[in-house]
């Protein structure tokens, strides 16, 4: 419907009207508006009406729709006479009429036509009609008169004038419109401001403002039109709210009349004239007003292409209307509002469907689904109201109510009479019968559910599903209800909403009871009986349900009905005793289980059993060495003391809470030791379950696949052969403690798998126990270990060792004995007070008898039961082997030590250790046990020979390398082969000497001899020692330290420097004589003879010696031969003298040059000893021989040269024999002249010293 602006014309040219009406709206005009509103481009449309006096608006009537905005006077008069005669009067009359009605918007159009002009040629052009008219009427408003020339002709002139006319017409029209609209709006505002006055009526105001809306709509300004309605809406709402607050307006009374018609919205007509008239008459009810208002808003919104806003507003409107009716306390027949809402919802949906295609609709489900749901709800409540939901037929009361409700709908609107799916028909049908209601209700519900699913609002969809389930339950159709309930229950459990879970579970229980799903019902009942959200009575009821079932006679097959334990009771903790949870075969192991019973009453449980999984673990025999701690503190919350705590979730929240709870941190201490010396390189704390903790947690728990079902699949009871059992227990509500005795018959590891409690026919099963609870049973072989009491065993002193026998599975009977085979080096010392200790829970001591024979020491053991530890101590002593330990001495003593390669230096202290093997025959084994004990030699001895002139001393240095402090007494040095001529005179103190750890003691003997000295002496050193902590006199066992000493005593070497002949003193630069005399003091012994290379020259045995004079400090220059070989006759006191010449280079007391003597071994001599040292000696020889050639020659080159020689064949070596040099061992050569100095005078006065004194 259109309301063009009214233009009233006077004496119209009918031929122009149509084209004018068409062409006027073609071009848009800029419309500047008051109050700072943005200018808009609008198209003006006009309705041309013939002038009538009564059409002119009366004073004060501002009806915009019928308001004449412009008056046009048309004339084609071109004759002055005629103008003066009739037209002018006519115009004057018209003008006065207009002025009378206050219209100032007028226009005079003079139509000129060529044809007429031609006929009237006498017209003066200067005084045209137009000028006259302008002169007469338009003083100062010359634009109010327009000339239109020949509008029906197609000439350019007529075109121009036509368009100019149109522009003028539009401008004037718009001007007038703006002016009048502004005035109208002002009036409207004035009217609105009067709303507090008593006589004010909303309906009147409504009509006024709506007129404005109409005008905007006409101008296609839908937005502005909508604003008018929204303002009206808001105003009305505010009044209703004020009314609610106690500030009632009189006019609202008409809206408070009881609602008689609830025919729903009507959105098919642009304007619902019926309702409009009702409003106009002030007879509209609240619903009428709201309906009309909304239908207008809806129309405008659809013009604005905003259909989805319609749906949103519709929902708000419906909610709001219900609230407003409540607020205004309007009487409404029960159910009438439901009808109204239902019809309205469907009407809005139909309207939207009418203006959108299917794809659009599907894409915008989220907007419409609210209406669908609302309609469903309302239909449901209607159904309950009219008795259409119950199983039975509606009563007459219900029918009456239905009839009343239908009556309020009135007649069906003519627009929808022919449509099959009209809301009216639907409601009528749905209320007509139970079946039809069900059909419609299901249709709506499913539609709403599908839409919710499509847009991902699963919770809403499930809520509808749940109400469907309730519906089915009312209809007595539990099969169909079950699925929906299950679905909802799962989602609530998954998200952890406890109240919903309880509520839905109750419905579920009802449903399952009807369906006779015994197991599920029992499960649900158990869950409900333990549900804290229920009252105690309800819980007791469900508990009673279980007990009733349980007390029924068992099923013929004898099978139990299995139910989840979790609903019935919760595991809190398990505790092993002994806490290690590792026991030997047959030992007692107890398991204390703490269970929280969730039932409201005490439950009599006939049997509580835990099945065990047995696995024959390899490490079973490994015993307590390995895994004791590992087992006990295994679970994430396990503690070291054998307690396994079970993670606690809220009993109801189930997986929802479970998912939110992070797994506990599993922290382990980590220590990293370096492989070489096991020192700590790093330490830290390691989180073992990092992968669980750092995993990304889904921020939106997926609802589509609830993982934790409300009722997990069937619970299987597995029949383990081994079980933990407890019979006839009464579980009180709350925490209970149950004690199990664990079977420990066979070695292996036992894992708790299932927990199963039986109450009559019902079994509560916990299908798996997590964290894993395990215990281990082991069987152990008897073991014997021998360990020193202190850190190290020291050789030479009696020490105690501990014998430990872990009996394992063997029981020591009376008469069992250990047979120790004796060794000489380590006797077992008898001690009077020997007793064995049997370690078990209580200590027991029993005597130990030791019998010793020559070969075997037999220790008879006290009887000991299996898996006990027997301990006793024995004193042992390890003799220090009478052997020197220094490797260089070893060489000289010619491999005597070789058979003790096990002696090696202790890594840290340099102690030498001795591994002593003990062979023991145990009663439980036919084989001997070999046990090695390591003893450390606490001392190290070195000796040296000191010479002072002709006196000789032997010094023995005894170093204590152990950590113990000792007393040392009676150091004795004896000759192996005592000779009369030798006497060793002790220079030592007689008392005991303390030797602290790591300290040394020196002992000294002077040698006195009568005869010429032997070349070699074999001596033995012995001393008594005892640890400081002992009283020395107690230590009767003084341990000898035997040592072979060997020395040559050989060549005293004298050097004498004589000044040149005729001089008293040596002088620098003058040659002096150096006389070296070498004397053999004793004959070499036999052994020495082998070593000493003597050559028979003409029957005289000689030894070749090489001497060399070296002066390192460049004091002397050796002139001539500095070295040479001398042959010493092998006879005592054979003396050889060598004369050389040396020249002192400096004046002063100069030390004698060094003289070195070597043994000179000729080439043909076959080395008698130590082939391993040969090469090195040979090299030395070479280096000596080549000394003149390359003094600085590096050893590598020499070595290579030497190796060339050695690589050569034996023949070649024989062909090119090399003499060898060998140094004397210390003490063999005594340098008489060592440390002597000779005075050297400077050369006389060859130089003048000049002293200048200034």
């Amino acid at each position, binding site marked *: 419907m259109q309301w063009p602006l009214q233009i009233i014309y006077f004496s119209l040219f009918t031929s122009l009207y149509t084209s004018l009406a068409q062409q006027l709206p073609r071009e848009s005009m800029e419309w500047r508006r008051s109050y700072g509103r943005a200018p808009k481009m609008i198209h003006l449309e006009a309705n041309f009406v013939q002038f009538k006096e009564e059409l002119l608006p009366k004073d004060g009537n501002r009806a915009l729709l019928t308001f004449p905005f412009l008056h046009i006077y048309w004339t084609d008069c071109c004759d002055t006479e005629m103008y003066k005669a009739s037209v002018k009067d006519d115009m004057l009359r018209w003008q006065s009429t207009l002025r009378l009605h206050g219209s100032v918007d007028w226009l005079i159009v003079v139509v000129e036509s060529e044809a007429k002009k031609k006929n009237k040629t006498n017209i003066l052009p200067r005084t045209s009609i137009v000028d006259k008219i302008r002169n007469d009427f338009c003083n100062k408003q010359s634009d109010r008169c327009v000339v239109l020339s020949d509008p029906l002709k197609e000439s350019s002139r007529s075109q121009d004038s036509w368009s100019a006319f149109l522009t003028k017409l539009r401008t004037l029209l718009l001007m007038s419109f703006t002016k009048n609209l502004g005035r109208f709006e002002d009036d409207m505002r004035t009217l609105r401001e009067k709303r507090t006055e008593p006589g004010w009526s909303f309906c009147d105001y409504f009509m006024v403002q709506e007129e404005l809306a109409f005008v905007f709509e006409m101008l296609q300004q839908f937005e502005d039109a909508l604003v008018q309605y929204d303002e009206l809406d808001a105003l009305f709402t505010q009044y209703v709210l004020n009314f609610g607050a106690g500030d009632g307006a009189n006019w609202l009374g008409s809206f408070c009349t009881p609602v008689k018609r609830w025919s729903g919205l009507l959105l098919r007509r642009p304007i619902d004239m019926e309702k409009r008239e009702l409003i106009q008459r002030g007879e509209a009810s609240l619903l009428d007003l709201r309906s009309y208002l909304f239908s207008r808003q809806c129309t405008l919104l659809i013009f604005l292409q905003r259909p989805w806003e319609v749906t949103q507003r519709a929902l708000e409107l*419906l909610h709001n209307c219900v*609230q407003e009716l409540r607020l205004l306390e309007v009487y409404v027949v029960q159910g009438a509002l439901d009808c109204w809402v239902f019809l309205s919802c469907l009407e809005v949906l139909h309207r939207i469907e009418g203006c959108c295609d299917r794809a659009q609709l599907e894409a915008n489900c989220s907007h419409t689904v609210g209406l669908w749901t609302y309609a469903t709800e309302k239909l449901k409540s209607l159904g309950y109201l009219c008795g259409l939901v119950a199983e039975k037929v509606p009563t007459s009361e219900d029918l009456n109510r239905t009839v009343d409700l239908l009556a309020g709908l009135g007649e069906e609107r003519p627009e929808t009479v022919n449509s099959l799916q009209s809301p009216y028909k639907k409601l009528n049908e749905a209320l007509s019968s139970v079946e039809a209601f069900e059909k419609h209700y299901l249709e709506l519900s499913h539609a709403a559910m599908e839409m919710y699913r499509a847009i991902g*609002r699963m919770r809403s969809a499930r809520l509808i599903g749940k109400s469907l389930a309730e519906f089915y339950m009312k209809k007595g159709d539990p099969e169909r209800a079950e699925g929906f309930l299950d679905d909802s229950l799962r989602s*609530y459990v998954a*998200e952890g909403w406890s109240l919903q879970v309880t509520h839905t579970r109750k419905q579920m229980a009802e449903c399952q009871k009807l369906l006779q799903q015994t197991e599920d019902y029992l499960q649900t009942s158990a869950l409900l009986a333990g549900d804290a959200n229920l009252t105690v009575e309800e819980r007791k009821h469900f508990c009673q349900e279980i007990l009733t079932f349980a007390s029924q006679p068992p099923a013929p097959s004898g099978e139990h009905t299995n139910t989840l334990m979790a609903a019935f009771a919760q595991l809190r903790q398990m505790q092993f005793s002994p806490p290690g949870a590792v026991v030997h075969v047959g030992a007692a192991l107890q398991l204390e289980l703490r269970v929280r019973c969730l039932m409201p009453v005490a439950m009599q449980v006939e049997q509580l059993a835990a099945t065990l999984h047995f696995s024959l673990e390899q490490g079973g025999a490994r015993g307590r060495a390995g895994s004791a701690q590992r087992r006990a503190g295994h679970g994430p919350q396990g503690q070291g003391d054998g307690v396994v705590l079970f993670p606690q979730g809220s009993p109801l929240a189930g997986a929802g809470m479970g998912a*939110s709870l992070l797994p506990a941190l599993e922290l382990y201490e980590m220590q990293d030791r370096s492989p070489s010396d096991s020192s700590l390189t790093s330490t830290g704390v390691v989180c073992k379950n990092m992968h669980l903790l750092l995993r990304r947690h889904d*921020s*939106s728990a997926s609802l589509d696949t609830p993982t934790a079902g409300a009722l997990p699949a069937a619970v299987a009871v597995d029949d383990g052969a081994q079980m933990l059992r407890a019979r006839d227990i009464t579980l009180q509500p709350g925490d209970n403690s149950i004690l199990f005795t664990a079977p420990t018959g066979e070695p292996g590891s036992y894992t708790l798998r299932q927990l199963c409690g039986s109450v009559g026919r019902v079994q509560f099963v916990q299908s798996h126990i997590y964290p894993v609870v395990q215990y281990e049973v082991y069987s152990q072989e008897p073991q014997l270990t021998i360990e020193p009491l202190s850190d190290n065993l020291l050789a030479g002193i009696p020490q105690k060792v501990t014998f430990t026998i872990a009996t394992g599975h063997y029981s020591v009977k009376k008469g069992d004995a250990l047979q120790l085979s004796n060794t000489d080096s380590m006797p077992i010392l008898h001690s009077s007070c020997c007793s064995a200790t049997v370690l078990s829970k209580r200590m027991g001591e029993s005597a130990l008898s030791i019998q010793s024979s020559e070969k075997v020491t037999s220790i008879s053991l006290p009887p000991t039961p299996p898996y006990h530890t027997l301990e006793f101590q024995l004193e042992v002593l390890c003799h220090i082997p009478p052997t020197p330990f220094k490797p260089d001495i070893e060489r000289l003593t010619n491999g005597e030590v070789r058979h003790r390669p096990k002696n090696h230096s202790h890594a840290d202290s340099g102690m030498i250790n001795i591994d002593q093997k003990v062979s023991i025959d145990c009663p439980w084994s036919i084989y001997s046990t070999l046990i090695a004990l390591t003893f450390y030699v606490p001392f190290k001895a070195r000796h040296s020979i000191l010479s002072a002139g002709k006196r000789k001393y032997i010094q023995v240095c005894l170093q204590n390398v152990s950590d113990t402090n000792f007393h040392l007494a009676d150091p004795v040095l004896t000759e192996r082969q005592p000779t009369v001529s030798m006497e060793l005179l002790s220079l030592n103190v007689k008392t005991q000497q303390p030797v602290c750890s790591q300290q040394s003691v020196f002992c000294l003997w002077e040698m006195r001899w009568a005869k010429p000295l032997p070349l070699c002496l074999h001596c033995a050193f012995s001393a008594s020692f005892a640890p400081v902590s002992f009283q020395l006199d107690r230590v009767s066992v003084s341990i000898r330290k035997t040592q072979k000493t060997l020395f040559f005593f050989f060549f005293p070497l004298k050097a004498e420097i004589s000044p040149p002949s005729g001089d008293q003193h040596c002088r620098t630069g003058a040659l002096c004589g150096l006389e070296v005399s070498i004397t053999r003091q004793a004959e070499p012994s036999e052994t020495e003879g082998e070593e000493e290379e003597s050559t028979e020259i003409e029957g005289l045995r000689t030894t070749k010696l090489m001497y060399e004079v070296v002066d390192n400090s460049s004091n002397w220059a050796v002139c001539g031969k500095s070295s040479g070989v001398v042959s010493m006759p092998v006879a005592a006191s054979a003396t050889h003298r060598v004369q050389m010449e040396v020249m002192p280079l400096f004046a002063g007391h100069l030390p004698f040059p060094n003289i070195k003597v070597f043994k000179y071994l000729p080439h043909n001599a076959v080395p008698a000893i130590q082939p391993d040292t040969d090469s090195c000696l040979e090299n030395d020889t070479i280096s000596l021989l080549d000394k003149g050639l390359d003094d600085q020659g590096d050893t590598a080159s020499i070595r290579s040269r030497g190796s060339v020689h050695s690589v050569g064949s034996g023949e070649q070596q024989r062909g090119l024999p090399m003499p060898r040099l060998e140094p004397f061992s210390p003490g063999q050569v005594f340098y008489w002249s060592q440390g002597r100095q000779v005075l050297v005078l400077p050369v006389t006065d060859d130089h003048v010293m000049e002293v200048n004194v200034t």
Partner: protein
Amino acid sequence: MAVCIAVIAKENYPLYIRSVPVQNELKFHYTVHTSLDVVEEKISAVGKAMADQRELYLGLLYPTEDYKVYPSHMIIVYYTPVCMFFILIENILLYRHTRYGYVTNSKVKFVIVADSSNTSLRDNEIRSMFRKLHNSFTDVMCNPFYNPGDTIQSKAFDSMVSAMMVQAS
């Protein structure tokens, strides 16, 4: 003022829920639970686009005939104060009811259910209620003895909620 106030965890289980007419508790629970649908929808629709704005209010999103449900979704970073940002959900429609939104980073949601008949409740009041709730909740989070994810059992929080509810009557 409010008839039911709920704090809902990221995983959508209730951290705290309290309603004034106790007999209707279940209904409120259902209402609050179902409103999560709308909250999630809003968050996913708006989430990224408005990442750095400061308003968390989601507005009246789930009106029913009897109650107005004002869900809100808040950002609280428990452990790291690094990415504290807020999301504004614009005012969706300015008509009769303004719809509001309140969103948080930790995806903890607040839902306030108000009685529809209580028409004097203004947008700003709802906002300030949410702000109060948010502050109080932050205090709870800051309690070193509170384990994030546990249900809230704080007297201070309780009394604050009670205060907001008492204003209604």
